[in-house]
């Protein structure tokens, strides 16, 4: 469904000399969705985001937001706001002045700026730190300030460039809950660039997987995870095996691979790795054709019948769990 507030990329292309960073990407981001651009480093996801933000000029194609072509507008007039990877807080300004920077640029007077900044800081639970300098804040707090600074411009689209990568794992999980909460509260579109599939799966309404300057697959998180269309997507999202069978290549989730006796299996192999992971046990099996296949067995089930490294096993699965993928 298209509404006036959607963001659309139309054969968006970015070249650096000969190198193609983004190759004619078309995509439609629906309003109010949490979208994740997911991909390995150098896949073009950051460049795409920076083009949407206006910090990089597209070589070809356009960016359409709310029905208007914004491709050549300056960043602040697009209705987008960006949250930078390193937060890019102004080190010489207090938290409050950082948040209200855009208002100062517009010529809003000081008391009004302070009031607005206070409201924004309240939204991210940082109101008691208004007079601190960024240096005096922890990573997570700095991020909240950066978020408040981006949101004070009332953007229709918030662009987040690897927002969680500078945080420690514990904070990362807390902040991602926070991001999701904010997005739902504000109802605006978030576009979040990440190379972490966990992050994308946890946050995104829609996942856009990029590789080699193009979109490999896009869709709701569950759809992309459960039915990867290409070998790259299956492997990058993790938790999948890509196996070559006589009638083609298929992706199958590791937890859908069952271990049986050699006679009953659809594919034979040898256990080459056993890793206890807490809730489950991860087994690596070398199957026919020198393919490595990972199988996840619930912990209890595995310890009913523990295995030795090197034993021969059979692998079986339900046909419905197989998804044909292109290689």
């Amino acid at each position, binding site marked *: 469904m298209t509404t006036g507030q959607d963001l659309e990329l139309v054969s968006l292309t970015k070249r650096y000399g000969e190198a193609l960073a983004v190759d004619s990407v078309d995509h439609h981001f629906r309003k109010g969705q949490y979208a994740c651009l997911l991909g390995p480093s150098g896949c073009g996801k950051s460049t795409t985001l920076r083009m949407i933000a206006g910090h990089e000029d597209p070589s070809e194609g356009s960016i359409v937001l709310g029905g208007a072509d914004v491709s050549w507008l300056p960043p602040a007039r697009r209705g987008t706001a960006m949250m930078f990877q390193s937060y890019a807080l*102004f080190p010489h300004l207090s938290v409050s002045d950082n948040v209200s920077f855009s208002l100062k640029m517009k010529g809003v007077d000081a008391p009004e700026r302070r009031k607005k900044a206070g409201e924004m800081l309240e939204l991210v639970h940082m109101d008691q730190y208004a007079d601190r300098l960024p240096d005096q804040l922890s990573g997570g707090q700095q991020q909240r300030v950066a978020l408040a600074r981006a949101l004070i411009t009332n953007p229709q689209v918030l662009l987040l460039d690897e927002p969680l990568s500078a945080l420690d794992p514990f904070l990362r999980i807390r902040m991602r809950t926070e991001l999701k909460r904010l997005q739902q509260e504000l109802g605006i579109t978030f576009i979040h660039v990440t190379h972490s599939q966990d992050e994308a799966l946890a946050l995104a309404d829609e996942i856009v997987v990029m590789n080699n300057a193009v979109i490999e697959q896009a869709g709701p998180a569950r759809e992309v995870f459960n039915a990867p269309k290409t070998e790259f997507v299956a492997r990058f999202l993790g938790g999948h095996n890509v196996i070559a069978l006589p009638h083609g290549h298929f992706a199958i989730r590791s937890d859908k691979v069952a271990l049986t006796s050699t006679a009953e299996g659809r594919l034979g192999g040898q256990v080459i790795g056993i890793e206890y992971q807490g809730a489950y046990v991860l087994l690596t099996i070398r199957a026919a054709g020198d393919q490595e296949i990972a199988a996840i067995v619930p912990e209890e089930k595995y310890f009913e019948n523990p295995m030795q490294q090197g034993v021969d096993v059979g692998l079986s699965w339900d046909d419905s769990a197989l998804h044909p993928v292109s290689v």
Partner: protein
Amino acid sequence: MRNLLKNPHLTGWLLASPLALVLLAFLVLPIAMIVVVSFWGATEFSIYPAFLFDNYEFLFGSPVTYSVFFNTFKYAAITWAFTLVIGFTVAYFLAFHVRTLTWQVALFLLCTIPFWTSNIIRMISWIPFLGRNGLANSTLISWGVIDEPLEWLLFSDFSVILAFVHLYTLFMVVPIFNTMMRIDRSLIEAAYDNGASGFQTLTNVIIPLTKPGIMIGSIFVVTLVMGDFITVRFMSGSQSANVGRLISNDIALLQYPSAAATAVVLLATVLLIIAVLLRFVDIRKEL
């Protein structure tokens, strides 16, 4: 011995001592000496150890001192203003407009080329250029801009300040450039993202973040100009004076106590200026 060396306090003192000794012998002692001599007495033909305030009384009692100090401040202030504007502009261009490191290094080295010759040579080379029948005057006359040679080009305050700016702008460029290179480029983008124009970014982000570099450059330029005597002598054709020339004249007349007293006052003045400058900006981050 082995145990003694393990004592961290002692090791620390030992490590610091060579530099401390050098500074003591070549900085503290000479200054102490100057301070001591400034209280000595002098006649036309001799100087003798004493503890007199004659030199200071004479110094502060003479109107020449005040006009010479005023002149020195004037040179320092005008030179500071010009080197700041030129230095900031050059540093800004190098840091933000030159994209590749190779070009930055190349252009930066280009700025240092004048330093391959001595100060004096660089100064003297202005003379044939600015002289009454020099390049500047003859060019302007041949263009018909002026009818007769401009007298104020050489041996004037103009030529003194021109030479100062020429000599010392690089001392402004280097620290400012250094500070600018440390500014995270995403801050500039963040400013644009928040709707700042180029000029607003300059005044709200770049200049405040460059302040420590500006301050270090200012200290260089101000101390160099305040302490200089040779530039003023050459470029003013001995027609203007600053404190440095006052001291050098006294020394030429073997009036060491008087020279020492002037030097002490100059040193105190410069230290005071630096103290004031440092109150404005914290440069510790740059060191």
